[in-house]
């Protein structure tokens, strides 16, 4: 993980003291709410239905055990003993008091954690593949570059008051776990024909009211130029992005209105002016950042240790098959911890769970934890021989549900239970679905199927790109849900198609069951995934099935 030095620590404490001053001015009346609002937002502080909400960044999804323990401590001391992991590598506290926030921030800053730019119309927390640096086949560790950009965008003097929020995601794998195509800027690390490191740059992806998949504006920007290129994109956007209509202010609308080619030309023209400037990422800087990511001292271990072979408990085998992924080092594995227990709120973890996971990370994963956009955690460095013992420990704290990537691994936003913008609830819908699909054999038979739920069109639950997407809407004061199918968030990202009229809260789970049954009846082979069946068949057969009896 990335170790902060004195310079970063000085900066964080200056940031906390600035916010302390802002809170004091707000509480004394020197700042009006209108003036305070954009300041608090730039520190991740929202006002929700019941209380303030505090969103803390987990840059590129990497946490140390000490940091996770501190997140738990803050949950206990300043909140109600739990936190919610979001779809953008953040954790949210739902019950924080404004007057206590500066203290909570100070405690987090002590372990190098902050909430800078987790909200507001600025460059948000930069996200990356949660398996960065440990998954086989990466051209480089994307976190190095995420950190280069994190530093560059932190309190950027020119780009802190953009037309709208701005999200950047990075991956270095062919299989995209960072959903780069639905980000304002998506970066794919690659090597060109000469073997040089660089990025494919996609711009203009985003969900919300008008979903767009990002378009490639430059197929190869050399790594040394990535900061100047991003500056060129941001500068064009800051000058030309719309500010007259909040729904048209994202960069995706600018790219759409100009056309990707014209937009790319504007960016290239700006880039030409600043490319050879102080923005060049020199080798020194990369080496320095690289040196502050610690990589474990891996041992030479057997790929198939006896401990693994001897553990024949069928529950273990199921979990092993579902939640454990290959590692770049032989004898090691990446273990996903499901925060989607049957009947639970997706992405929620209690302080006790966080503490226990931190201890297990120390014992089994070189003290490192990862957070993914699917709202699950991962231990990225587990020796395979330790898997049986780890599984028992994870099972005891309720994070070994073997449903990763299956139908009950639901991504859901907080919805109307917490969120002041919501039209409808998300969490109870997710909970009911996890109960309907609680049977593991059934879920395994269905195979890979992502359900995403958002409580309003802001799409925090990424419903457009769920294999099945559920969107809460309001009709005459009642909760209704629109269902889309066929979306996906990975390298083949596409926005799902609406199947028909919205259905009531009480009908959602039945409708999803119908869709799944239709799929099981229609799939060409047992290994034809839901998403592939929808691509082959279109929405019509599913639509017929759902509305035939309704």
């Amino acid at each position, binding site marked *: 993980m990335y170790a902060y030095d004195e310079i*970063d620590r000085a900066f964080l404490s200056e940031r906390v003291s600035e916010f302390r001053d802002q809170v004091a001015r707000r509480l004394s009346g*020197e700042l009006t709410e209108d*003036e305070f609002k*954009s300041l608090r937002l730039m520190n991740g502080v929202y006002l929700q239905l019941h209380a303030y909400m505090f969103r803390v960044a987990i840059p590129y999804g990497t946490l140390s055990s000490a940091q996770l323990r501190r997140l738990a401590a803050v949950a206990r001391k300043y909140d109600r003993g739990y936190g919610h992991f979001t779809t953008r590598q953040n954790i949210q506290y739902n019950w924080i008091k404004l007057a206590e926030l500066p203290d909570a921030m100070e405690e987090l800053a002590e372990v190098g954690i902050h909430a800078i730019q987790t909200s507001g119309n600025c460059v948000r927390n930069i996200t990356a593949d949660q398996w960065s640096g440990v998954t086989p086949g990466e051209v480089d560790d994307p976190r190095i570059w995420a950190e280069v950009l994190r530093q560059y965008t*932190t309190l950027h*003097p*020119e780009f*802190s008051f953009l037309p709208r929020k701005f999200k950047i995601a990075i991956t270095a794998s062919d299989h995209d776990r960072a959903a780069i195509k639905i980000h304002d800027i998506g970066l794919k690390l690659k090597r060109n024909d000469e073997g040089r490191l660089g990025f494919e740059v996609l711009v203009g992806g985003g969900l919300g009211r008008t979903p767009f998949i990002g378009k490639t504006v430059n197929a190869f920007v050399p790594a040394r130029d990535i900061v100047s290129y991003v500056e060129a994109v941001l500068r064009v956007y*800051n000058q030309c992005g719309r500010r007259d209509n909040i729904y048209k202010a994202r960069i995706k609308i600018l790219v759409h209105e100009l056309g990707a080619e014209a937009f790319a030309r504007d960016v290239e023209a700006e880039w030409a002016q600043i490319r050879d400037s102080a923005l060049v990422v020199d080798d020194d800087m990369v080496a*320095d950042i690289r040196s502050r990511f610690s990589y474990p001292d891996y041992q030479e271990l057997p790929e198939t240790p006896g401990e693994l072979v001897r553990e024949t408990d069928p529950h273990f085998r199921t979990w092993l098959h579902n939640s454990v992924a290959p590692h770049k080092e032989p004898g090691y594995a990446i273990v996903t911890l499901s925060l989607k227990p049957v009947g639970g709120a997706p992405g929620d973890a209690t302080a006790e769970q966080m503490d226990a996971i931190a201890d297990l990370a120390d014992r089994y994963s070189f003290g490192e934890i990862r957070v993914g956009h699917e709202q699950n955690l991962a231990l990225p460095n587990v020796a395979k021989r330790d898997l049986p013992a780890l599984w028992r420990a994870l099972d005891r704290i309720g994070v070994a549900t073997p449903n990763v990537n299956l139908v009950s691994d639901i991504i859901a936003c907080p919805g109307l239970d917490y969120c002041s913008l919501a039209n409808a609830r998300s969490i109870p819908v997710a909970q009911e679905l996890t109960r309907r699909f609680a049977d593991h054999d059934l879920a395994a038979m269905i195979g890979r199927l992502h359900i995403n739920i958002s409580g309003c069109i802001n799409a925090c639950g990424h419903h457009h790109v769920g294999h099945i997407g559920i969107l809460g809407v309001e009709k005459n004061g009642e909760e209704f849900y629109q269902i889309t199918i066929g979306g996906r968030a990975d390298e083949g990202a596409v926005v799902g198609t609406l199947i028909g009229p919205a259905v009531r809260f009480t009908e959602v789970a039945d409708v999803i069951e119908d869709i799944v049954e239709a799929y099981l009846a229609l799939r060409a082979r047992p290994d034809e995934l839901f998403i592939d069946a929808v691509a082959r068949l279109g929405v019509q057969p599913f639509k017929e099935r759902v509305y035939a009896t309704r």
Partner: protein
Amino acid sequence: MPLVKANVIVSDDFVQVADDAPLPDGAILISATRLLADAETILRRNGNTGVVWPNNRSVAELVPYLGRLAVIALVFPTFRDGRAYTQARLLRERYGFEGELRATGQVLRDQFVFMLRSGFDAFDVKKDSDAEAFCQVARRYSVVYQPTGDGRATAHDSRRALQDEDAR
């Protein structure tokens, strides 16, 4: 609205002149349209000229006059509208403007750091309390992460300096 320059509150020598009012002697601040309508005549008169430049107009249009303008005032119609930061950096870093770059409109203490780093050196501050706090607020951050025209050493520069020291 107090005007802050070089960390202290100063009196404003420039008189803002409406588009239809006759031009007085002395230092004046006029609109972009008035300047562009008759720039050569206006810039030849006795007394300094400044222009209030809107944030939706390209500052490249000002290039022919930069050497003769004493003040360019850039506008923040709301706290949240950040276009003038880009204009400021372009004027300083690309077009080499060396006169006074003034921030006007919704100017609060919480923007001072951003404004200073973007090249502003004069601030039409909305609240007296913010103007008085200028000095303290402007020094709030000892660390900056990105290079801009203000020439401040970035975090990376400081790290490199530390390493060089260690190496010696």
